[in-house]
């Protein structure tokens, strides 16, 4: 489980290290469990060193769920390693980046 911060009714998940197939199934579960409560969610990416398509898929699924259920959702601290993959996938203009 990645650490979370609760503030003003909003949850921030602080991702760190390498977000790949070895961790993304647990990340997906963690993200969806928070969204199911209806709370706003921020994914903090500052300390992510690497993210693969399975990690990006978690972000896309979260965004789609949040949008469908009118839940506030965004990405914060998008660094070069994350932006590289988002741009390659042409998602940099789609996902809500702070």
């Amino acid at each position, binding site marked *: 489980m990645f650490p979370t911060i609760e503030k003003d009714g909003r949850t921030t998940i602080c991702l760190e290290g390498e977000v790949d197939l070895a961790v993304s199934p647990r990340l997906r579960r963690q993200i969806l469990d928070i969204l199911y409560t209806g709370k706003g969610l921020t994914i903090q990416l500052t300390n992510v060193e690497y993210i693969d398509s399975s990690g990006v898929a978690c972000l896309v699924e979260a965004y789609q769920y949040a949008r469908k259920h009118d839940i506030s959702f965004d990405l914060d601290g998008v660094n070069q390693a994350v932006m590289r993959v988002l741009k390659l996938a042409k*998602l940099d203009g789609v996902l809500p980046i702070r």
Partner: protein
Amino acid sequence: MSEEEHLGRIRFKSRAEELCGVRRKLKAMLRVKTCQCETTECIIIAINEACMNVIEHAYKGRCDGDILLDVFCDDRKLVFRLTDFADRVDPAVLRPKDLNNMEPGGLGVYLLDEIMDELRFMPCSHGEGNILEMKKCLDDNGQPVRHGENYGNE
């Protein structure tokens, strides 16, 4: 035509936990080739996606499958051959999906196709399994040469 040099082989099992080590070893191998840093990072993304596909779709969750990644280079290109010993896969899996639908799945093949210049399944001499060959063309400075490629950094 220049001769291909074998930069090395990475052997690993079909487990997601192996991917981190594969990325590290590949990075060290590509450092020897001294290709540009951004190019190296993108190649690692592509190869990681190809390895993931083998783990998820060829071995279908089996954790004991063998996977070999061979890296070759000459002065103009890097060649990666990813060998598995699982059931044959349909070459159509290499067709990237339409990202306009923004489905969470299918991103991996899209990234692979976006980064590599050539993807093809080769005939397997060992009678079973799959060999995916991926090529990346480089100029004299280790920069990618494909259609004005800039990896989305417009």
